[in-house]
């Protein structure tokens, strides 16, 4: 699986949505991505990429695209 696929997977499995629906998705844009869902998403991403995110990055993680930016800039995940 490519990193992009792993990344998309974390979203589709945590929030039970399709790949199509991940595009442009924002925090609290769907009911599943609330504060509880957010921590589940973080856990899924940390497992998928074997990383540990900083609290600041968890807070800044505000959309599907922003998350990719954070992972590639700070956690060396190449997409």
């Amino acid at each position, binding site marked *: 699986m490519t990193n992009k696929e792993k990344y998309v997977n974390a979203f589709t499995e945590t929030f039970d949505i399709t790949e199509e629906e991940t595009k442009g998705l924002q*925090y*609290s844009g769907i009911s599943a991505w609330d504060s509880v869902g957010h921590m589940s998403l973080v*856990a899924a991403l940390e497992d998928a990429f074997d990383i*540990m995110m*900083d*609290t*600041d990055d968890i*807070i800044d993680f505000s959309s599907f695209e922003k998350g990719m930016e954070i992972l590639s800039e700070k956690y060396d995940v190449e997409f």
Partner: protein
Amino acid sequence: MNFEEMLQRTPYSFSKEEKEAVLTERLSELTEKHRVSCPPYGNILRSAGYERGRIGSYKELPFLPVRLFKELELKSVPDDQIVKTMTSSGTTGQAVSKIYLDRVTSANQQKVMVKIVSDFTGSSRMPMIILDCPSVVKNRLMFSARGAGILGFSIFGAKRIYALDDDMKLNVEGLKAFLDKYRGQRIFLFGFTFMIWQHFYKELVRLKQEGITFDLSDGVLIHGGGWKKLISEAVSPEEFKRCLTDVCGLSHVHDYYGMVEQTGCIYMECECGHLHASIFSDVIMRRPLDFSECEVGEKGIIQVVSTLPESYPGHSLLTEDEGIVLGEDDCPCGRKGKYFKVIGRLKNAEIRGCSDTYAEKFR
């Protein structure tokens, strides 16, 4: 200084004068914002004789009795901007406060909470034991104070386990496995004071008699929710700490004071046993007779102010708790700002008396 700039500062870095200026600016702004956007709040200000230009210090701003959030729906944003509603804990049948959060307020609560707690635990995330049951966070549309607390603190948990099952039984096997897996790492524990005492501490004591022990000497525990329910058990804060150290070696224990109406701005207990106000909020003790400000060392009713609430007019509140300011800017732990202690809840009759006196102000 705007709010974004405040977020760049460390949470206990303002001296009295700097804090006074920053809070006065921000809290006056919030008062004005809510006056315009929340009509019931505007009415209250009008009956309180509030005049915009005459506020010289944040200490002169009007405050709402905290129970008003049980009686009125107070919000300053349209319904479609509300992303989360939080409720105060209350026994069945009792009215609960409802606090409406928009995206900005909700995010700022989390940011400020992280800044405050990191000052005590460091900013790295740790394996986390939640001393509660998973069902507390089940209803995702309506968060109780307990659920909100757990969620807020969960950001510090790198891996998380609930210590109790939904029947409030300690998950002994799960806990053992978790501690084995993360041995040698600092463990973060979080829970509510009474729940910890009732369902964790007492069970550990019982297990110890059976020869089952836990070593939590690498742990740091943060707990909140108040001591009211523990009074009948005659457990003092000192006793609470001593007992936990005795039974499982846990020695880094911090109490905190906070309320669902001002989530995010918690008051953490430092190494000297004092609760501290950060740059994002403050406490003012008030004399019950005329609501003038108490001297240092004088007991009064606690008013809390917070720079966070943008979606509801909860930036200046009179609580139903009593406390004493112990000092300002000079706690031996080195943190600036006021440090204080909470004595406890006002009795119901006192609260009624107090609301009557307070109601007088609005006539």
